[in-house]
């Protein structure tokens, strides 16, 4: 039987980042992935590394610590991850939103996020493509961008360079315990003896959890994204609308029109190649990954209102990804009390790319029993925080067993 110190299950950005950090420390790691690297959520998202969208608190703190790691990663990884630090804006359309954002910005400033409010003219100076109908925007120079697929591949190749093994196209069938601790992983192509398993399966993490008797409250939240043909520079940095923030944290405030039911909050960004990525939706539709006409229409209506020039640019593609959503919007990270040697690294919803680097570091510290190199209270991220939660009720109320559309 093969043996390894740590088995990481899941070849998305989180699993690859964890494998990378461990391998770099000299730990023997085997990464198992059912399909291919970045074939799920990490390959079906946009490219923003947003700080402004994080809830002021632990969430923002993690993101702030996390983005500090990106400039170094760019040097460390043998791959151009297209990391840029062009800042980000949240567009404000109404006086009401302005007031909400004013408070939001104050709280963010207190936690060390540089962000300010711009009036309409100053916002349009930064983004001449914006329509005149806006009231203003926020601006943070700290928001960045990265190519999520290259980032995932960069972590993966880096892990392999430091000796990690990868088993792709292979399904984990079972995890065997012995006396309450991890003993081995049963896969479609042989068994692996190991004392540590990291569950980095994103929206599929609950299925791995079931193998060891854990009920993990992660459910899929669909995000649809539209891709345009490549055009000359039009959108600078990350652009989101205030509805995006509201859709993320307080969807009940959005009202009950179609855009709100689909959880539409506009996000715009332009890739290095010139393609504009237009997002997105936040829908609870179970594990259905197809795009819908009504959502694309609604998203494009918002996008062309903000950037009228988009009307003359062709769409070449659309896709949807499933974001791993948890009851409190925070990921589930670290040790699991009931099972020695079993670790969680999943549930980042739409923040997996921004939080990938710090997740890898944190997990590496926990697994190698190091002193924590980053000051984050892991208890607040543990699976145990949901002990009192009605997890099945959570799934049912969020349509996890989902009807399509």
């Amino acid at each position: 039987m093969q043996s390894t110190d740590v088995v990481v299950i899941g070849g998305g950005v989180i699993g690859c980042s964890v494998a990378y950090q461990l391998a770099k420390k000299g730990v023997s790691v085997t990464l198992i992935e059912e399909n291919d690297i970045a074939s799920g959520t990490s390959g079906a998202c946009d490219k923003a590394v947003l700080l402004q969208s994080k809830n002021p608190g632990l969430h923002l703190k993690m993101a702030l610590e996390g983005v500090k790691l990106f400039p170094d990663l760019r040097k460390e990884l043998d791959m151009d991850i297209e990391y840029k630090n062009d800042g980000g804006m949240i567009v404000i359309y109404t006086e009401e939103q302005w007031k909400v954002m004013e408070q939001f910005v104050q709280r963010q400033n207190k936690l060390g996020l540089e962000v300010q409010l711009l009036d309409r003219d100053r916002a349009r100076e930064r983004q001449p493509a914006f329509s005149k109908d806006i009231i203003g925007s926020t601006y943070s120079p700290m928001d960045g961008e990265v190519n999520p697929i290259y980032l995932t591949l960069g972590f993966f190749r880096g892990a392999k360079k430091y000796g990690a093994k990868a088993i792709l196209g292979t399904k984990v069938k079972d995890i065997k315990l012995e006396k309450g601790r991890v003993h081995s992983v049963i896969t479609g192509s042989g068994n692996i003896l190991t004392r540590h398993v990291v569950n980095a399966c994103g929206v599929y993490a609950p299925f791995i959890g079931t193998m060891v008797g854990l009920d993990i409250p992660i459910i899929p939240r669909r995000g649809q994204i539209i891709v345009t043909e490549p055009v000359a520079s039009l959108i600078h940095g990350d652009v989101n609308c205030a509805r995006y923030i509201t859709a993320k944290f307080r969807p009940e405030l959005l009202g009950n029109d179609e855009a709100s039911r689909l959880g539409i909050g506009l996000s715009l960004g332009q890739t290095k190649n010139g393609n504009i990525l237009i997002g997105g939706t936040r829908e609870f539709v179970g594990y259905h990954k197809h795009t819908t006409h009504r959502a694309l229409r609604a998203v494009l209506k918002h996008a062309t209102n903000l950037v009228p020039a988009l009307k003359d640019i062709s769409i070449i593609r659309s896709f949807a990804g499933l974001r791993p959503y948890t009851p409190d919007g925070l990921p589930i990270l670290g040790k699991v009390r009931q099972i020695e040697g079993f670790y969680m690294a999943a549930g980042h919803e739409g923040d997996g790319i921004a939080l990938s680097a710090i997740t890898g570091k944190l997990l590496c510290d926990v697994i190698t029993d190091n002193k924590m190199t980053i000051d984050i209270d892991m208890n607040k991220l543990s699976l145990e925080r949901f002990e009192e939660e009605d997890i099945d009720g959570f799934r049912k109320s969020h349509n996890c067993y989902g009807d399509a559309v």
Partner: protein
Amino acid sequence: MKTTDIAVIGAGPAGLSCAVEAAKSGARVTVLDENLKPGGQLFKQIHKFFGSREHRAGIRGFRIGQQLLEATERLDVQVLLDAAVYGIYEDRLIAYITDGRDHTIKAKKIVLATGASENALAFPGCTLPGVMGAGAAQTMINVNRVLPGKKIIMVGSGNVGLIVSYQLMQAGADVVALIEAAPKIGGYGVHAGKIRRAGVPIYTSTTIKEVLGEEKVEGVITASLDEKWQHIEDTEKRFEADTVCLAVGLSPLTELAWMAGCEFTFIPPLGGHVPIHDRNMESTLTGVYIAGDITGVEEASSAMEEGRLAGVACAESLGYYNEKQALALKNEIWDRLDALRTGPFGEGRFTAKLKQLEARRQLA
């Protein structure tokens, strides 16, 4: 919201034949095509078709196109042109762009008759202006009446390469040479004989090594191939030419079938990945049918028969034909399809199509 009984995507030979056959039963039929004119590739086919009388042998392709269009008018088929279908969504909702605006139509049955696209070939200089698909050159001369160039190298000796070479000469171009990577000519002897008699040299076991030119094609260097398809040294020949036409096969245009969620199988002789279908041309999605080159690249006659078959099957499933009526019609079409897939050229396609049906049986 616009609705219809049967929406046919693609107004080529398969799509129009399907529309006519379905409309004969009384069904409401809407055909959508992204082009400004219907007919697909039929209107550039100025040559006579082969086969038996039932397959309209001896009739030129564009005449068949005209007959089909007249039939659609007579039968009140709605033909939406400049309608680029970009998606098939939930509950058979078809989304398309006309006049730069978004439209939708909901259909009880959908027939995908999207055809095929020409394959490209990579070699140094392949992006120079003057390198084009043979089908594109054919459209230029036969539809737009524009000569793509004066001195032409044709790559590929299948029927497309042979026929288009002859038509380019008829249009006034000089076909300098026809080259073929395989050791044998791929198309019908009668077509090859025609261009040989006109003095066009055909080089088999030969490929393009490089196309020369700064801003456009100025010359072509060819090289001979051994039995393992590798270049043989010192066999280079240089030709003066201003145009290179590529007739190196077609690939089914399957994007909409992928997007709709049809299951596929891989059959190289049919052009690669093709949607799985049953004897009625229904894909693995209920109510979504396929016909013509999207099901595997053949030729216009079998595309038309497959279109008719899908048309009858749709009409039957909507209750416009009873089982007996439909079976009688389908039996005739199946017989004609079998007849088209015989002989030295048809046999391979016959076996390939059997594999496609076998894939369906295995799923069931």
